Structure formats: structure tokens, C-alpha cells
């Protein structure tokens, strides 16, 4: 388990009688974008705070490059809290330099990084403006810049896409990718599953404080049943019944959605379909992250009940 990057091992956090997080473990490697998915109150923010050290867990540990994380490493984590917060009456340039210095950057390095990021976010000429004078979108950019201006060792972003317009979503995704490519672990949480699906290397699904799924999108997909869309317009109804291990799940016009169990062979199905006449469509139905999410939630709830 002692790998590079972040390691979270068996974290449990209780607030009185409420167990916010229970025995949670996952790793995020350098260069990896890890998406944290779960409903409100599932424990995402608590987990992030434990990683940052602003909360102390009741059990478990947080590792960095295989050994317990130190204050010096934590200082250099770029963090964007779910509830955004900066000084509204402080000039953004000064504010970012100040925050960079608090994170351990020297004054010249901080000033250079702030100039670079303000340029990148097209806020260069606003450096002397108070934060409160900026538009909501620009304030969000400053908030992101605050997590970047000290060359962070890791990024931890709580709901970074919340409240962003599509353009801002794209530029945020771009920044996350760049940062990961520069070789640091990137963790973020989100409700927007299609974004997570698009930009994450790996996804963790958290429910009621427990990690119920953790893997690449492909790995998560492979857990579910194999499904096929087949469009054979000339096929008689019930043509699949004769094929072993295959079940018709849904019919849409001439298209059918088939679910295959382990014994079934998709090539057999294709031959059977071609035998009925032309085949216009034959493709694997990949479940969306939403499907996986729902599936995982139901499975885990069922497991809890039984």
C-alpha cells in the first residue's frame, strides 16, 4: 500500500453519535485525478478536512508518499473549500500573495506565481481591485488561483464545479488536468456526474460515510451486467429467446436492449441477429456514471438491509 502520493487508510470520524465517515480507505497517485462522488452529507467534506488536517479523525491515518503526512506537506496542499471564502475587502493581488506566503512561498516566488495566474485567468488588470468588486465568476477564479499560487503538492477541491457556467467548467477541468499532468494528485468532489465521468481517472463513490465503490470508470463499468443494443428490423419478436444466457431488458421500436450473463457470447448473438436479416446497430451499452452510481447505491443499501 505504501505508494507515492496520498494514502487514506481506515479513516473514521464521529460527531457525537453521528458517524460521518467509517473506515474509509483510498489512494490518489501523483498525476491522477480522483473524483469523489456521493450525496449531500455522505462524508466527502469530512474526508477532505481530515486529509487537510483541519479535522482530526477518530481512527485511521493519512499517508504521504508512504509515511504519515506532516504539517509541512499539509501546508502545501491547495484547498478550495465548498463554502468559498476570501477577504472581501482585500485587493486580490495582495490577497493571493499573502495566501501563497502563508503556504510557504517566498515573497518573490509568490508575486511571480500570482502574476502568472492572474494573467492566465485574465484578471491581470484587476490585481488592485478588492475581491468584492469582482463578478461572481471572477471571484471563483480568484478562489481557484488561491489554491494554485504556491505550487501545491496536491490539490483538494470541494465541489469546484458548483455554480460554474459551462465555459468556466471547461477552464476548471483544463486546470485540473494540467495540474495532474504536472505530477501531483488531484482530488475533487462533485455532484455533477457527467463532469466526473469526463475528467476523472478514478472515481470513489461514498455513501453514508463508507466508500462503496472505487476504481477507474472502466473498472466500475465492468462490475455491472454486460448490455447490448441490437437493431435488427426484420427480426421476429422473441428472436433472442433461443439464445442461452441472454435476456431482453427493453424494447425501443425495432431496437432491443439485451442483458448478457457470464455464459453468453456476444458473437453468437450477432450471428443470430444477422440470420434474421439486416443489422443496423450492434453496440455495447456502457452504463453512465449515473447508472453505476445508482447501481452501487442500491447494491449497498440492499447489502445493508440483508
Amino acid at each position, binding site marked *: 500500500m505504501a505508494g507515492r502520493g496520498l494514502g487514506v487508510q481506515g479513516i473514521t470520524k464521529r460527531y457525537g453519535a453521528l458517524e460521518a465517515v467509517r473506515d474509509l480507505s483510498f489512494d490518489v497517485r501523483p498525476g491522477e485525478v480522483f473524483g469523489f462522488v456521493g450525496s449531500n452529507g455522505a462524508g466527502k467534506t469530512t474526508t477532505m478536512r481530515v486529509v487537510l488536517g*483541519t479535522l482530526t479523525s477518530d481512527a485511521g491515518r493519512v499517508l504521504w508518499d508512504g509515511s504519515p503526512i506532516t504539517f509541512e506537506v499539509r*501546508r502545501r496542499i491547495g484547498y478550495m473549500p465548498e463554502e468559498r471564502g476570501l477577504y472581501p475587502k482585500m485587493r486580490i493581488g495582495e490577497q493571493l500573495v499573502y495566501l501563497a506566503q502563508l503556504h510557504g512561498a517566498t515573497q518573490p516566488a509568490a508575486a511571480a506565481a500570482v502574476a502568472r495566474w492572474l494573467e492566465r485567468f485574465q484578471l491581470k488588470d484587476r490585481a488592485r481591485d478588492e475581491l468584492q468588486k469582482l463578478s461572481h465568476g471572477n471571484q471563483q477564479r480568484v478562489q481557484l488561483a488561491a489554491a494554485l499560487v504556491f505550487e501545491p503538492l496536491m490539490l483538494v477541491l470541494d465541489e469546484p464545479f458548483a455554480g460554474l457556467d459551462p465555459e468556466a467548467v471547461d477552464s476548471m477541468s483544463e486546470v485540473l488536468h494540467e495540474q495532474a499532468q504536472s505530477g501531483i494528485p488531484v482530488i475533487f468532489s462533485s455532484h455533477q456526474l457527467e463532469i466526473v465521468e469526463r475528467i476523472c481517472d478514478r472515481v470513489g463513490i461514498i455513501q453514508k460515510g463508507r466508500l462503496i465503490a472505487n476504481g477507474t470508470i472502466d473498472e466500475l463499468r465492468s462490475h455491472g451486467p454486460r448490455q447490448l443494443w441490437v437493431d435488427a428490423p426484420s427480426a421476429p419478436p422473441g428472436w433472442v429467446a433461443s439464445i442461452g444466457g441472454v435476456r431482453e431488458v427493453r424494447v425501443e421500436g425495432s431496437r432491443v436492449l439485451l442483458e448478457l450473463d457470464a455464459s453468453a457470447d456476444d458473437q453468437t448473438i450477432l450471428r443470430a441477429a444477422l440470420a434474421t436479416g439486416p443489422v443496423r446497430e450492434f453496440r455495447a451499452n456502457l452504463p453512465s456514471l449515473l447508472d453505476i452510481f445508482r447501481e452501487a447505491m442500491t447494491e449497498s443499501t440492499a447489502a445493508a438491509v440483508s
Partner: protein
Amino acid sequence: MSRLGGDGLHTVFLIARREFITRVRSRVYLVATVVLMVLLAGFIVLQAEVLNKTTTTVTVGFVGASQALAKPLAATSAGGVTIETQLVQSMSSGEDQVRSGDLDALVSGDPSGPKVEYKDQLDSTLASNLTTLVQDVVFRQALTASGVDPATIEAKVAAAGIHPVALDPNAAQQSQRQVVGIFVAALLYIALAGYGSFVATGIVQEKANRIVEILLSTVRPRQLLFGKVVGIGLVGFIQLVLVGAVGLVTVMQTRAITVPAVGVTAVLGGLLWFVLGFVFYALIYAAAGSMVSRQEDVAAVTAPIGILIIASYFVFFWVEANPSNPIGIALSLLPPFAPVLMSARMATGDAQAWQVGLSILLMLAAIGGVNALAARIYSNSVLRVGSRVRLAEAWRGRA
């Protein structure tokens, strides 16, 4: 502080510098400082005026032979009374001037028994000085009549005198010192309560902004707390230095205080006790502020602290009136009251050296205790948003 060595101190410095710069740059601070300086200088000038106003001027007119008394009478101007004399042409015009108030008295007739006319009240100093002069005139006439040269007698009389020995030379300064003491007490109470509540408000703002979450992901709660206290304290300290300097300069210029050392002691003592008192109270204000999340709730948690400071100010009036009362002395030694009471007692000159030393030692000990307490409450509460954190929870650190 041991946990803040090296780089930790640099962080405290960064935080303190931000607090200092943003506050000193604000227009409110500039205006408040100037207003305070102007008010203090104005008060001192006014005070000096009142002191000078006790010298009244009496104008006396002389008609006819009585004019011989004019010069000697003017020479008797002394103490708080200046006597001005002028010659008047006629009785009637002199009497008109007395009625109109241009003259306080009109003297006429023979110098050995002149008539003195006045409107409704004869100035007592004038009456007694004039009487002495007239008696002197009669005395000289009698001496000359009996063949003695008045000059030899006068020389002997002039050489005679009393030998004054002051048994309590400081008593004269006492009233000045009391005024200075009240000033020091008032300034300290305003500065401690004011800057203390800035600490509480600043902390609640950071909680309300939610920036505290970002800050505490990179600095320790103690660093944030100390940086804030140092930064805001420095702002208050500089304001007091400026106001104190203006006060001292005005006092010297107007001679509102006759002994400059009194003013210097008051200013230095006041600054020392501001530093001690501020650290003590700011830590308490910080702990209280960290327990609430909204600006509206700050007043409720900080009110008891403010009351403690204001109470020491009002207690000072009683302490000052009873300088040797042991209860007053004891109160001035105890940390919550010492900043206001001891600094003011030092200004009035009532505090003895051992009392000053003991009160400083007690204060330092109290700061040590409050520091441990406040840092713990602050660390446990500052990230908790929502309803007010109860004291027991803040202490234990668990919900």
C-alpha cells in the same frame, strides 16, 4: 509559543503584518486617530485656559489728589489679581464709567482717607490692598510729624520677612496628577475595550467569510490567533503613542501641567499597561469571538469582558479618592483591573514601586494562563460554524 519556532514565527509575522497594514490603511483609523489627538489637545488647551482665567483684572479710576495712590496700587498686583489704574478727568465721568462697568471702582479725595465708589460689589483684594496703602500713607504722615524719617523705618520693614518651609511639596501637583490619572484610565479603558473587540470582530469575520477554513489548512490556530493579536495590538499601540505624544507636547506648550515628569510617567505607564492589558484582554476577546459565527452574536459574548474593563474605569474614581484604601490597592494589583487601575495610579503618583512590580508579575502570570485557555478554546471553536459553541464544548473540543 515554543511550538511556533522558526518558520512558525514567520507565519505569525505574515498574519500580524496583514492585520496591521489593512487596519492602518483604513480611513476610519486615520480619522479616529486625528479626532482623538484633536480632542485631547483641545481639552488640555481648555484646561490651561481655565487655569489662567483665575487671574482677574480689576480696573480702578482715580480723580484728583487720590491720584497719588494710583502707581503704588498698581504695584500691588499679585497672585490671581491684576490691578490696572487710570486717571479720570471728573467725578461724574468716573461714576458713569463705574455704572457702565468700564471701571470696577473710582477713588477720589484725600489719599489718607479716600472715597471708593463701586457698582454693587467691591473686589476684596482691591479693598484690602487699598486699605493697606492708605494706612501706609497715614503711618508715614504720623512718622514724619513725630520727626522720624520714614525711609529708615521702611528699610527695616522691607528686610523683615517669613521663612517658608513646605512640609508636603507634592500636594500642589496633586490636583494636576488626578486629572492626568483620570485621562490615563479613560484612554486605557477605551483602547482596551475598543481594540479588544476588534480582535473578536475580526475573528468572527474570518469565520463568516469562511476564509478561516483556507487559513487553517495551512497555518496552525495558534499562529492565526497570535498574529491577529500582535497585528491589532500594534495598531492600537501606535495610536496611543501618537495621542500620548500630542498630549505631552500640548501640556508642555500650554503649561497645563507644571511638572513635565508627571506627564511623561503617565504616558510611559499607560503604554506599558496597554501592552500588558491588551494581550490579556485580546486573548479573552479572541476566545469569545471564536465561539460565535455571526457578526450579530459578537456583542452578546464580548459584553461581559467590556463590562469588566468599564468597571475598572469607574472603580478608579473611588480608588483615586481613597488612595490609601487597601481594597483599592488590592484591586489595582489584580490582573483584570490592573491595566486601568495601576496605570492610572502610577499617573497620580499613588502607586508605590513594589505595587507596580507585583502587579506586573501577576499580570504576566495571568497572561500565561489566559493564553493556554484562549488558544485551546479558539482552536476548538474557530472551525465550527452555526450556533454558538458552548464553553464546555469549546474546552473539550468535541460536539
